[in-house]
């Protein structure tokens, strides 16, 4: 069954067409990577699916419901979580407080102003479990802005997962990381998304091939190919599209 499906999704900014009728299908439980050369419209596709912009044409179907143009908070409540390419945490708050925001949302605690949040033992326990799972126990009371780059990125990804979404969308989770940090983050994502449906945009082909069961190639705002890593690897059109892209050819 498809958890997420887009039908003829298109989008333009002030007359500049970025997406041309994208039909993306993401099945239950799969790890799906969206790749493509720079300017292919990957981030726009992401933003249109997660409610940042309302698409100028087409439909987004999530868990069988039409969610086209729904506000981000509504999508989040329906079970869609996302991370950002540019780290976007609550920088002046501790790691614990950052994750707790996700836990509160997961439990539907949103307009509660008659109880102390520190006194909610369930929330505290669950937050600490998540911290243990992502290996940030030692950094529990460190401000997010004081984390090392790799750990800050890990927090970014973990926040997307902290609401326990049915579908998590990661926008270049390893952007700007060193080799060791990338490796650690790939392991983290593998562990955290086990049994979950995940969609990611990624430039690093090593990351793509070690995480994805299925790959969709976006090229000038349209889908060029979609299939298992092996199929994509051997697709001649994909090779042509990437001709000259060192990173990609290197990966083969």
């Amino acid at each position, binding site marked *: 069954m498809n958890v997420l499906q887009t039908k003829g999704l298109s989008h333009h900014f002030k007359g500049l067409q970025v997406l041309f009728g994208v039909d993306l299908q993401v099945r239950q439980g799969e790890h799906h990577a969206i790749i493509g050369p720079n300017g292919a419209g990957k981030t726009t596709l992401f933003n249109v699916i997660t409610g940042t912009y309302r698409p100028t044409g087409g439909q987004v179907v999530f868990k069988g419901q039409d969610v086209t143009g729904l506000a981000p*908070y509504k999508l989040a409540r329906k079970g869609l979580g996302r991370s950002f390419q540019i780290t976007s945490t609550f920088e002046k708050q501790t790691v614990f407080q950052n994750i707790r925001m996700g836990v509160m*949302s997961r439990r539907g605690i949103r307009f509660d102003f008659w109880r102390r949040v520190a006194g909610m033992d369930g929330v505290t326990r669950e937050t600490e479990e998540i911290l243990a799972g992502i290996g940030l126990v030692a950094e529990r009371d460190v401000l997010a802005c004081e984390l090392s780059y790799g750990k800050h990125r890990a927090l970014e990804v973990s926040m997307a997962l902290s609401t326990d979404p049915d579908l998590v969308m990661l926008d270049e989770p390893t952007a700007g990381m060193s080799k060791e940090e990338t490796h650690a983050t790939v392991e983290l994502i593998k562990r955290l998304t086990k049994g979950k449906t995940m969609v990611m945009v990624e430039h690093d082909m090593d990351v793509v091939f070690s995480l994805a069961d299925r790959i969709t190639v976006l090229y000038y705002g349209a889908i060029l190919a979609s299939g298992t890593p092996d199929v994509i690897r051997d697709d001649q059109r994909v090779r042509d599209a990437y001709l000259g892209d060192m990173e990609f050819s290197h990966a083969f």
Partner: protein
Amino acid sequence: MKRPVVWLAGALAVLAAIPFVFGPLHTNLMVRLAIEALFAVSLNLLLSYTGLLSFGHALYFGVGAYGAALILTHLQGIPILVAVLLSALAAALVGLVLSPLLVRVRATAFTMLTLAFGQLMFVLCSKFREVTGGEDGIMGWTTPPLALPGLFSLDLRQPVNIYFFAVGLACLGILAMWFFTKTPMGSVMISIRDNQKRVDYLGYQVVLTKAVIFCFSGFFAGLAGAVYAVFNNLVSVGGVLHIMVSFQPLMAILVGGIGTFFGPILGSGLLLLLEEVTQAYPELALMISGVIFILVVMFLPGGAISFGARLRAWWRKRAYLRKARESEA
């Protein structure tokens, strides 16, 4: 017992003792402090906790003050607490009515819009003299006693009684806001300040949360205004809606320490002391305000409260060095 509880009990004991230790003159000063502090803390909820700078908070203060004056003038026999609460609710209602516009703008646009609304109310209240008395304002109503039928009745014209009335309400209000910052919704509020986009993507309704905060902040600003009306027995546009009424609590927050909860209370106290000292030169009041804004922003952005923290750090460092020297010897 937990430390905060001890602190709280101590502070309340001191507050309760003040009128008996000092005379009525100083209790009046304390009433003004209570009103200013409550007002400043309500504004601080927006400034330090939601990251929004308002230049028009006098709007809520004024609605609360005019509300109390109108209710006490026209509805004789209404219990004083009901009148004060209704006035505060009116201010909260104004916050609710304006919130569809206020939630849409951020940063400088928010500041300008609040400035506009504040000035708008000032103009309206100056022009509609039939209701508000225009420049002269409303005065001379009989303030009913604070009473529970058959139990007690306190005449609020007595300094000691108005002291307990004002300080009591201010303490309750400030404690309620302090508690609010510690609740889940308080966490959402702080997170909106830090990163509104992320709050949205985590599944929280930013718009509705902000609207609730505006009502909340407006309610307590209105409460401060209502207490002001009861205390002064006079409400005029110049006294409760003028733009300087919006700037006063801003100054208190800055002087005390932006980004802290208790800074504004300290700041209100310091400003009141300054006012007492410079009272002989009223024409210098605006100049002093301006200089304070400039100096604090440039040289002490953490406010007076950060001074305490700096002092503590310095003291700790000294103790540490001394210990190091001793262990060396």
